[in-house]
Each structure stands twice: as structure tokens, then as C-alpha cells.
């Protein structure tokens, strides 16, 4: 007995009424449904797999979009950055030609210098290794000698200009100018002023000798001063440590 006969016999035993009914399927499907179903299922599986794999992309981009994207971004960055550059704007006003020259770095650093160099550690080592260098005696002596000569020149110059001229100025200070002028007649004053040699240059400052002229004058003045006077001056105005032995004249 096959399966169909078994089922009918079973149903006859349970319900003879049901056994007499033909197992008719009243439902219908759309025309061509089973023809199209395999393709529809395969399409859905493909979509499902794409979604699961994360490779599905419903959007599209123009052809070659990604090839030129990096260049487009860089050019956009450059065009937007140049006007903002304060230095370039300033240079455009000062020297526009310099703006046309590339600022590309012409120097090069050793390969891996910035990545390998530990600047913090280097600074630490530098601090540890710092040495105190003492000046040698001869070098120190020369410095002291040079300082003393310069000090001597300056002090002597000051001495001469103050002490020598002091007597002249003191003589003028003692003169009663208004009283002396009262003694001079108006005719004498007019005659004096008319003389071009006595004309007064208004707003003209005192004539200041140039550095070289001053130095020449100081040298000439020093020659007039004896060694004893210079030695005396240095003893009175200099620090004891700076005193150098007097130079013996031949």
C-alpha cells in the first residue's frame, strides 16, 4: 500500500465524510509566479549578502571622481589659504616680486633627524655636560691692560678738559658782564656786530669734534702730561686692582 492509499484508509477510519472530499487546493497564485520566483530569491540573496558584507552601495559617484579628488582638495586648500596669509599680503605691498618666489625649503636635514632626535634628552645631556672654562692668566692680564689704557685715556681727557679749562672758565666767571657792557659805547657795539667775523649763527650747536679728531687731540694732550701726573691721577681715581705698573720711559 502506498502513502496515498494509507492516508485515504486512515481518513476513512477517522472521518468517512472527509475521505469523500477531494483534496482540492482553492488558492491561486499570480500568473508566472513560480517562473519568476527563483530569480527573485537569488536577487534577494545577493542583496542580503551584500548588506551583510557591508559592500552594498546604493549611491553613485561620477566617473573618475576618486582619481582627481586628492588634487582637487589640495588646490582648494591652496587657493583658500593664500589670501589669508598675512605675510603674503604684507609682502605684496612692500615687495610684490618676492611673492612670486617659491618659499620651498632649500636646506635639508639628515634623514630621520626629526623623528630620531630626542630633543628633550639632548637638552638634559647638554645641561649635565656644561663645563666651566677658566680664563688663563695671560689673557686676563691683557684684558686688564687694555681696560687700564682705555680708562687712562678717558680719565686723562676728562682731567685736561676739566682742570685746564677750569682756569679759563673761572676767569670768565669772575667777570661782571653787565657792568663791562655798560662801559662799552653803542658805536663800538655796532662796529663789533657789523664785523662778519663776529656774526652769531643762531641755532648752530657747538662744534663737536669727530671721534678721530678727539682721539688725536687726546693723544697730543697726553704727550704734554708727565708720567708722574698720570700715575697720581690713576691712584686717586682707579680701583687698586686695576693699577698697572707705570711704563718706564727710555
Amino acid at each position, binding site marked *: 500500500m502506498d*502513502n*496515498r492509499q494509507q*492516508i485515504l484508509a*486512515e*481518513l476513512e477510519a*477517522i*472521518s468517512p*465524510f*472527509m475521505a469523500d*472530499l*477531494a*483534496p*482540492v*487546493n*482553492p*488558492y*491561486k*497564485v*499570480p500568473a508566472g*509566479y*513560480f517562473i519568476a*520566483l*527563483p530569480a*527573485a*530569491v*537569488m536577487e*534577494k*540573496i545577493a542583496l*542580503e549578502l551584500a548588506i551583510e558584507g557591508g559592500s552594498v552601495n546604493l549611491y553613485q559617484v561620477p566617473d573618475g571622481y576618486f582619481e582627481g579628488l586628492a588634487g582637487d582638495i589640495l588646490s582648494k586648500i591652496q587657493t583658500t589659504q593664500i589670501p589669508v596669509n598675512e605675510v603674503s599680503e604684507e609682502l605684496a605691498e612692500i615687495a610684490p616680486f618676492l611673492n612670486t618666489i617659491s618659499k620651498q625649503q632649500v636646506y635639508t636635514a639628515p634623514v630621520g633627524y626629526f623623528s630620531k632626535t630626542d630633543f628633550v634628552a639632548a637638552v638634559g645631556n647638554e645641561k649635565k655636560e656644561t663645563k666651566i672654562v677658566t680664563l688663563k692668566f695671560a689673557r686676563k692680564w691683557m684684558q686688564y691692560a687694555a681696560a687700564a689704557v682705555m680708562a687712562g685715556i678717558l680719565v686723562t681727557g676728562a682731567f685736561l678738559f676739566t682742570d685746564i679749562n677750569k682756569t679759563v672758565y673761572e676767569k670768565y666767571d669772575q667777570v661782571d658782564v653787565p657792568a663791562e657792557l655798560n662801559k662799552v659805547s653803542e658805536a663800538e657795539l655796532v662796529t663789533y656786530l657789523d664785523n662778519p667775523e663776529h656774526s652769531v649763527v643762531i641755532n648752530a650747536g657747538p662744534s663737536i669734534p669727530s671721534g678721530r679728531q678727539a682721539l688725536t687731540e687726546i693723544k697730543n694732550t697726553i704727550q704734554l702730561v708727565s708720567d708722574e701726573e698720570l700715575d697720581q691721577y690713576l691712584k686717586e681715581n682707579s680701583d687698586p686692582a686695576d693699577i698697572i705698573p707705570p711704563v718706564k720711559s727710555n
Partner: protein
Amino acid sequence: MHSDDKELLFQFRQVATKEQAFTAIIKKYQEKLYWHVRRMVVDHDDANDVLQNVFIKVWKGLENFREDSQLYTWLYRIATNESLSFLEQQKKRSTVSFNDMESGLSNKIKADTNFDANRLEWKLQLAIQQLPEKQRLVFSLRYYDELPYQDMSRILDTSEGALKASYHHAAKKIEEFLKNN
């Protein structure tokens, strides 16, 4: 396992013939599975959705399918579970009671464009929808698909004795319904 099913499974496991073999499996079992699902969910669009999900699950699981059982019982098992899951989701969405759900399925039958209240086969469908889900499944697999209890036992994971009892109860209830309506 049928020799042609074995061959289809072998081809499915080859990359070059995978899709071709799966299309052949769909073509072979689509109608049986469709009607099984359709009798459970009634509406064609719902049956179509469920059936496509069935085949997607088959695609994913077929690689690991053990050949010690029949392919078609495995397919029926998936289709049954998908149908029951679909009905469960429908219940949750509509938040209606079991009785309301049954009447909802009856209304779907009556809404079918080919429905004819005077024809006995339509009355039989209305009678089947009055059954509890498990009895409905058993009756459908036995009465329409004419499956042996042994295979039904594998599909529904129920003993053959329990299945025979369910079928008996289902047939009696349907008879009573048809005689009274």
C-alpha cells in the same frame, strides 16, 4: 537522501556551480514549500515574503547541512518555523488574542478574490483556520502534502504517536465544522 538532491548539494558546495545548483533547488521545492506556507499564512504576499526568507536561510545554512537526513524535510522544517515566526509577529503587531487571530485568517480567506462560500474546498480552508496552529500544521502536512509520519516527526520534532493523535483530532474538528456550516 535522493540521489539528485545529493548531486545538487555537491554542486552547491562548488564555487563555480553554487548559484546554479541553488536555483535548481528552488525550482524543485518552491511549489511544495509555497503551498505549505500559503495554507499557514493564507495571504499570497505574506506567503511570498515568508518563502523568500526561507530560501535565504536555506542559502546560509545549506553549507552546513548534514546529509544524514532528507533535504526536503529540512526545507519543510525551515518553512514551518518561518511561517510560525511570521504568525507570531503578526500577533504581536496586532496585539489581538488567539481567537481574533484565527478570525483574522478567516477574514483573509474570505477576502481572497477567488473565494466562494458555497464551494466545499473554501469551507474546508475556513475549517482548517479554526484549528490550533500545531493541529493545523499536522493536518496540512498529512492531508495536502501526504507526508509520512516519520518525516513529519522530523519536521515538527514530535513523536509519530502524538502526530497521529493530532491528525485525528484535527480531522474530527474539521468534519464537525463542515457539517455545521
